[in-house]
């Protein structure tokens, strides 16, 4: 009985520390500040700079991913990549093909700097915080974030399943189409 009570208390405490439900409205972890552009080499004069994060700070955060889902439509990503992410004049985001890489920092650069042949640069127009939310959401569309943090429902009527029910797609680099 006591063991069960202890286990319950530990479980409740573990939930309290849950990253999933935290809502960070203002601050972003300092490490997430990636205002400098993507670096093509590690060579540099002087002491090396702090490494930018390789993961989106919202990867395990349900609120951040849900905000990304809202922004995906608000900033008209859906205009080219389609509402359900199946692709139209822009490439599909729900499949396993990644022209410019599936790593979070690569997706970040894709959104912030733009890519040749159509992807506009959103740097300077969207705060970094929201770009990271979009990165987490784009990952969730391909099933690359944990299921308990991915959105479990669609706000609008659409044919696709919510992201939480997306099977993991093993990313493969395809190069330019």
């Amino acid at each position: 009985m006591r063991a069960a009570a202890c286990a319950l208390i530990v479980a409740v405490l573990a939930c309290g520390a849950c990253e999933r439900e935290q809502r960070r409205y203002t601050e972003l972890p300092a490490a997430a500040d990636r205002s400098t552009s993507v670096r093509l080499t590690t060579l540099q004069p002087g002491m090396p700079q702090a490494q930018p994060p390789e993961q989106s700070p919202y990867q395990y955060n349900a609120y951040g991913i849900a905000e990304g889902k809202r922004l995906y439509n608000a900033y008209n990503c859906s205009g080219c990549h389609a509402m359900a992410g199946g692709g139209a004049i822009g490439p599909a985001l729900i499949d396993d093909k990644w022209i410019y890489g599936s790593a979070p920092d690569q997706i970040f650069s894709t959104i912030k700097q733009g890519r040749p042949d159509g992807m506009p640069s959103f740097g300077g127009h969207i705060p970094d915080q929201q770009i990271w939310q979009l990165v987490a959401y784009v990952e969730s569309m391909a099933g690359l974030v944990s299921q308990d943090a991915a959105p479990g429902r669609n706000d609008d009527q659409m044919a696709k399943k919510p992201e939480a029910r997306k099977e993991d797609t093993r990313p493969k680099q395809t190069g330019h189409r």
Partner: protein
Amino acid sequence: MGDVIQSVLAPAGIQAARIAHLWWVMFWVCTVVFILVVGAMAIAVTRGRRGASDAGHRVLSRNVAIATAASIAALLVLLTHSVVTGRALETLKTPDALRIQITGYQWWWDVEYLNPQPSLRAVTANEIHIPVGRPVGLTLLSSDVIHSLWIPNLHGKIDLIPGRVNEMWIQADRPGVYRGQCAEFCGLQHAKMAITIVAEPPDQFEGWVAHQREPAPPPTLPSQQRGLDIVERGPCAMCHTIAGTTAGGRTAPDLTHIASRSTLAAGTVPNTRGYLAGWIVDPQHVKPGNKMPPLALSSSDLQALLDYLETLK
């Protein structure tokens, strides 16, 4: 903020007056019933039970009959008043009414003055002006969750439901500034989702709405021009519209005449230069959880932006 208290018992229009009348009828009927019931109970307690005689039985059954008849009469009075009020609330519908479309967003109100002629439409947010003495038909929509519009001095509540079109008919009979608010819990900042209703004489209203149709005036001073550059090339244009410029975002309140409104962030803070600066730099402090992201602007950029926004009368 208004010059009138926000209360259903201070009606400023025919609809609210009908509802207030119904409320007072219910209040007095219930007061009389309450006094009678408590009085009858007090008599029963003090006088006690007096033998089960034939006379006693007759008195008892007579009293029960009277009480039953009185209850039915009171219910009929209330029911009649309720039906009459409900029907009367529908009588304001007229084809020549002013039509306004209000769309609820988390957590602000998008306002569009409808007109069969598209060039005569006007878009604003969080503040509506209406002419005194003319029926106004509000078309109520929602973009995300269920909201409810409640302007206690003018009418009862009507919900704004996603995927559904609701209507509300109001008329202000006295000029004044009335406050409305969201009356259906719609998320974190539900409490800070207010709307200002300014009822003014018809000629004054026509002047106001004609001005709201105008695009934003072009900037005249260099600092204002710099502010406009920040709006168009920076983050503002991603969500906000300023008619007459290239800023055409449609997910946030229209800013074409932001300086003519009395409040910011749906009635959260007064619209002054200081509050506007605070709202732009740190909106999550003023209204945590709202959809406006904090913007990293240098202080000179911020001042230029404020210089420009203040011209949007």
